[in-house]
């Protein structure tokens, strides 16, 4: 605990020093993300940097190491607020946990733009996010189309507590239940986005259900593990993934994966900063900014409008 307090103290001290260093005429907009290691977040950051250059504002981007570290993210938000930014971008890991801090931001007159997933509160002036429920429902419809409307399918979710984990899983499962009665969902497993674990889960699912026809992964790590597991089991199964990354793109080109849903991560980063700047200037912004999603497969993966939103 001592080390943690020291660390916190050091970060706050550092934060105070850097605040002084930032030129006063440039608007400062920190983005607190859910992570930074995954390529998805790097793409969001790229979009934010693009907007920063365009609107001539100072943007910082940080996030905890794993999507379970709600406490770390709260610390980051606290530090960011203490720097008195012009506006703040926030992708909540746990929207309830952050509400007291967001209220403080509101009292201090700092507009908050939620990104990637919404916050259950009316404090954010705007939310720039993918509709994960609609995107996963599209995956369900594509699955049904490819496997011919009947058979067993399974889902490997990246987690069962975050908004995206819940929305993508439920979006897929509910769409299947509502519109495709011939399809039976035999399992919803949790792979934590870990490639190796997702590969093992896939092989177990195939062993438990030799007649499995389809698999849906709710994020990149899960999808790559799924491809590996199906390959090792030498099974013939329709795989639908989520997001992109080089391994997933390769799997779609080679036909191992039927296709995937891609969000528009660059767009999420860009729209967040754009809305934050507008709000800081007192202009009105749209409450819900749908940054969009696309289905991509081997037929359209190289088309410019798709290639632009995919990342390696």
């Amino acid at each position, binding site marked *: 605990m001592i080390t943690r307090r020291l660390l916190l103290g050091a970060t706050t001290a550092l934060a105070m020093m850097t605040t002084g260093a930032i030129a006063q005429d440039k608007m400062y907009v920190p983005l607190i993300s859910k992570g*930074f*290691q*995954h*390529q998805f977040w*790097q793409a969001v950051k790229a979009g934010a940097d693009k907007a920063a250059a365009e609107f001539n504002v100072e943007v910082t981007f940080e996030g905890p*190491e*794993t999507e379970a570290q709600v406490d770390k993210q709260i610390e980051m938000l606290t530090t960011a607020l203490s720097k008195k930014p012009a506006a703040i971008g926030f992708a909540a890991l746990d929207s309830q946990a952050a509400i007291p801090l967001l209220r403080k931001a509101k009292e201090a007159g700092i507009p908050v733009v939620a990104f990637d997933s919404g916050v259950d509160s009316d404090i954010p002036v705007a939310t720039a996010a993918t509709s994960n429920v609609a995107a996963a429902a599209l995956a369900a419809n594509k699955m049904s189309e490819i496997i011919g409307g009947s058979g067993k399918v399974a889902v490997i979710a990246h987690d*069962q507590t975050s908004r995206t984990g819940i929305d993508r899983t439920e979006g897929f499962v509910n769409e299947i239940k509502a519109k495709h009665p011939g399809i039976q969902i*035999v*399992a*919803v*497993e*949790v792979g934590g986005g*870990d*490639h*190796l674990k997702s*590969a*093992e*889960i896939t*092989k*177990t*699912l195939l*062993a*438990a*259900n*030799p007649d499995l026809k389809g698999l849906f992964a709710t994020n990149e790590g899960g999808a*790559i593990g799924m491809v*590996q597991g199906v390959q*090792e*089991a030498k099974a013939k199964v329709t795989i639908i993934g989520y997001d992109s*990354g*080089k*391994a997933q793109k390769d799997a779609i080109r080679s036909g191992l994966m039927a296709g995937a849903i891609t969000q528009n991560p660059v767009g999420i980063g860009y729209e967040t900063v754009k809305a934050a700047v507008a709000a800081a200037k007192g202009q009105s912004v749209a409450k819900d900014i749908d940054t969009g999603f696309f289905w991509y497969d081997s037929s359209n993966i190289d088309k410019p409008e798709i290639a632009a939103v995919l990342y*390696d």
Partner: protein
Amino acid sequence: MSLTKLKPSGSTLQKALAFGSLIALVLIFSFLSENFRTLSNMINILQATSVIGVLAVSATIVIITGGIDLSVGTAMTFTAVTAGMLLTWLGLPIPLGVIGAILMGALTGLASGFFITKMRIPPFIATLGMMLVLKGLSLIFTGTKPIYFNDSPGFTEIASGSLVGLLVPAFPLPNGVLILFAVAAIVGWILNRTALGRYTYAVGSNEEATRLSGVNIDAWKMGIYALAGAVTGVAGILIASRLNSAQPALGQGYELEAIAAVVIGGTSLTGGRGTILGTIIGALIMSVLTNGLRILSVAPEWQIVATGFIIIGAVYADMLRKKT
């Protein structure tokens, strides 16, 4: 007291107990599901054990000395990244990448050993520090992007190919499993038949007595940590080969699975007692349990609960045995 007599003290019963639990679990799951008892699923279980099994062997070596190594998970990732840099970035041939990764593993172990012996930092803290250092370095060196092995065809064969399958097509046992068994046999031999092994047990039983009998504890301990690190390097090669990539963000959390396998296998966390065979059985128990519960479609939340209770139960059984 002659050091040569310091052998793993009577762990036969513990091994029998652990082995009995393993067989019982396999029988129960086989009875409950016909999909569990297939040859291909048994091969799946063995393959799922390969990476964690090798890591657990590494953890066993350190735990026998009475220490702990929390860095095995991220050290594994770091050695995988090393292999990626050597093979994909520098274009070296596969054997050099493998040797480089193992050497890098030994080097990280040596560093931990140095912190523990020369700087007197407790193993828990030294390896906790190393865990973070290596995790950070993996992310820095790769720029947080995975390194792929597409330019080294044949690299995936190390873990996923099957020499056995070439000879007996009906039994495609992946090479990763053979490597696990080979590593276990070599480390088992080192622990039982060499001076390094004898000192590993001696340090764990009574470090002060060993020091007073004139043994250069620091040097041997650094050697022990280096050996454990080299074994971690093998795990790094296995996971990189399996995933055809070095994933810089993976690895944290694997150390706890490895340590769980070690204690289920009857190695005492207080040191001086434990065997590699026990650890392999412990790792297999974990894999069988995970696989079986999934095949039975037990909810993921309950799978975690069940695994927790198995760890507690296994260690409790071990303590009961020690009392009698």
